[in-house]
């Protein structure tokens, strides 16, 4: 007997150790998940915040009347067609007194974004007095320069791996020494749509596209899902048909999202001939996807309304339908709203089905109607990620930040509604 007790006594040390170890493993699991989350957020934010600012270079522009308006007619159309790239290059050259050959001036001209020539021509059309005069202007730097300015560690790379040549780097450092370089809020990013040049590309077009798509999704899925939820939870008789309905809804919730894209492609585009890349089709596909989410949310929030409410209404002579529509449903609205917002936020982050229906096009215009070609926010992120130019890496991360901000806002709203309006019985 004592022998046994001794054995228990002896084993206790090891057992306690394995107990501590096991608990530690559990904690480690959560810790690792948490670390992953932090790493993801860190890698996104550390790269993305760079894209919110962009580099400008101060250039003393000489509005050469020989180039702009050789005939001295001050005609708007002629000025618009003048070679403003040459004006920029010539003005840049004056920064560097050393003799520059033709190749050098080409390299120099790539300092400034290609959009600035248009900007200057509009400027001159409006202010014709400047023709033949000098003016100090801050011009948008090209993406390659911008990337180097934002990532100083890239200056140490070899010339082939760097985006700019040794000569360009020398000029850049000279500009920096003269304090002719500044970083400013990247307005293009917040107001423009996609572009081939990273410094001119923006998120606004895809944000509008996402908004239009989600509007369609909401209009289509919300009433249908609430109606289905009310029917299944409150009014449906228990029979084979409703059972079949429930099985279908559960299956629909588990179908991979890309399958919905295939459905959209085969039916909405190829049979119904709706326009490709349009928010209306995207909205329809996403509506089918969010349907189960909202139905399930509706049902669970209807379920949480106590039966006494129904009994009281029926006791006072209401029909079953009246008791549901006039009394139970209003009490369930906060829960339904919460579920709907969460469903919408999921739809906002969804991109796979949108790839199938062609919302991955390169679209330079901000969409204005439900039939315009457009992209959506997550698809824009995907598109930028697939683009080779180095400047798009930061834009992609910035796009992710914008997407996450919207998701946080939506989920915050859902939590707010839940805590503020939802009744605890």
């Amino acid at each position, binding site marked *: 007997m004592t022998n046994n007790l001794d054995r228990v006594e002896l084993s206790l040390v090891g057992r306690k150790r394995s107990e501590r170890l096991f608990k530690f493993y559990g904690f480690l699991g*959560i810790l690792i*998940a948490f670390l992953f*989350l932090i790493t993801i957020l860190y890698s996104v934010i550390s790269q993305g915040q760079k894209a919110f600012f962009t580099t400008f270079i101060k250039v003393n522009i000489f509005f050469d009347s020989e180039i702009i308006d050789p005939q001295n007619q001050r005609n708007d159309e002629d000025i618009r067609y003048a070679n403003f790239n040459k004006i920029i290059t010539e003005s840049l050259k004056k920064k560097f007194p050393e003799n520059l050959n033709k190749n050098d001036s080409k390299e120099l001209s790539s300092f400034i974004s290609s959009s600035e020539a248009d900007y200057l021509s509009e400027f001159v059309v409006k202010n014709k007095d400047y023709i033949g005069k000098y003016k100090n202007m801050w011009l948008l730097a090209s993406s390659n320069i911008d990337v180097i300015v934002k990532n100083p560690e890239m200056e140490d790379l070899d010339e082939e791996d760097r985006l700019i040549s040794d000569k360009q780097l020398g000029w850049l450092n000279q500009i920096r020494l003269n304090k002719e370089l500044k970083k400013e809020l990247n307005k293009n990013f917040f107001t423009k749509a996609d572009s081939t040049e990273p410094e001119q590309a923006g998120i606004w077009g895809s944000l509008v596209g996402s908004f239009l798509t989600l509007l369609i999704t909401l209009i289509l899925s919300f009433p*249908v899902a609430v109606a289905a939820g009310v029917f299944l939870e409150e009014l449906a008789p228990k029979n084979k048909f409703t059972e079949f309905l429930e099985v279908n809804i559960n299956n629909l919730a588990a179908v991979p999202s890309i*399958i*919905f894209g295939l459905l959209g492609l085969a039916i909405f585009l190829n049979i119904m001939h709706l326009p490709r890349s349009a928010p209306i089709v995207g909205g329809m596909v996403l509506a089918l996807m969010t*349907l189960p989410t909202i139905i399930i949310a509706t049902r669970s929030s209807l379920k949480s309304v106590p039966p006494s409410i129904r009994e009281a209404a029926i006791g006072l002579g209401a029909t079953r339908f009246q008791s549901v529509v006039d009394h139970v449903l209003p009490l369930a609205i906060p829960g339904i709203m919460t579920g709907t917002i969460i469903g919408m936020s999921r739809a906002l982050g969804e991109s*796979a089905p949108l790839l199938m229906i062609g919302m991955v096009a390169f679209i330079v215009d901000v969409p204005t109607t439900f039939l315009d070609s457009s992209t959506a926010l997550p698809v824009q992120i995907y598109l930028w990620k697939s683009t080779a130019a180095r400047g798009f890496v930061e834009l992609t991360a910035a796009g992710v930040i914008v997407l*996450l901000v919207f998701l946080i806002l939506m989920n915050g709203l859902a939590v707010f509604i839940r805590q503020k309006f939802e009744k605890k019985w």
Partner: protein
Amino acid sequence: MGFWSFFFIIVFLGLTTRWYGTNKALKLNSNIKEGPKLPSLPSYYGANAFLWLVISVLLFLIVWVFSKPYILDYILIQNIPKALIDEFGGTPNMLIDIIKATDISNIFPGTNPIIIENALYYNKIDKLIDSIAYSIILFVGLTVSIFSINRISFLFKARQAVEKTNINLLILCSTIAIIATIGIILSLIFEALRFFEKVNFFDFLFGFNWSPQTAIREGQVASDGAFGAIPIFSGTLLITFVAMFVAIPIGLFSAIYLAEYAKPSLRSTFKPILEILAGVPTVVYGFFAAITVGPFLKNFVGEFGFTIASESAIAAGGVMGIMIIPFISSLSDDVIRAVPQNLRDGSYAMGATKSETVKKIILPAALPGIMGAVLLAISRAIGETMIVVMAAGIAANLTLNPFESVTTVTVQIVTLLVGDQEFDSAKTLAAFALGITLFFATLFLNIIALRIVQKYREKYD
């Protein structure tokens, strides 16, 4: 008549009908000094008229939306001179597409004048038939509302009628789920059958060579073996395996800690953190896998003198595993907490420590539920698209080495369909064959998982 003016007229008509119907019923009621009044409340008479108006207008609008393209095409074909069709060479439908795509406000120089003329005609006709259709629908709506207002009498039980219609509408909404499922299955099967007309079913399912690009060149018959899906299935399974390798241990240990060890306060902080991982859009995970994890692994493994593909299965699978963690942890957490307390108490009474109880009593008891959770997670992983599209490869390699680049079913669907327009080629149809495989695989996994979880629940409830 444009759409918006039509819309506002209908809204106005509807509200008027409702108001008029209610008022008519009120008047009928007030005329009765003694005896029974109308069988339903006056507002139900208004609601009934309103409902019928809305239903009939919606019905006709839907019919119009679907039939308009066909009617429009028919009218346009009648107008195109025969000479142009002969000269064009293609089918008349292609010509109509060209006409529709012509932007008359900004005509491309050198466009055939007949096409411009037809484009102008198209714009005119488009508006004209729209307004004709709207007028007809308006007329129908008006007739229906007059008819339903006329029905208001002592014999008509409006409440019953309204409730019946409403319930039928609710049922109609519920059946959308069925319609969607049928739509998915039919569209997938239909296109997949067209694919299997061109490629042998068994060659697809058991072939070892996947190179759809070679089979698309014109005049080339889809060569045998070009659509062998085995490398794709194996790639999918490899990435899923890597994902599960990451997700199951972390998810399960987190669940055990949350369910058995964590104090309530700790639990209420940790659970939302895990749920944030579930709320991150997959495109963000894809970005993370491609930009951060891929290069990191390449450098890290390179330190030891190994080489690793930049789009390796391990990068995509690992990040997918992170995405799956909350899925496994929250499902397993529910399952573990559902194990009855008296099992735990019995084990403690025998002198077992907490970890021994978890290992020897709770996990075996919860195993079916955890299996269900894992199966659901696997079905999630094989259907996941964006992570693999952004971080896994496109070339179909038949390998089990996670450091190499493999491709998955979803990646292939995306690469086959994005950008390509030709809808009759075996290449695009192959995407649907892969889609239906994916659909049935996930459906199968889900049904089994739900069965297991349900059986398990019955056991302890």
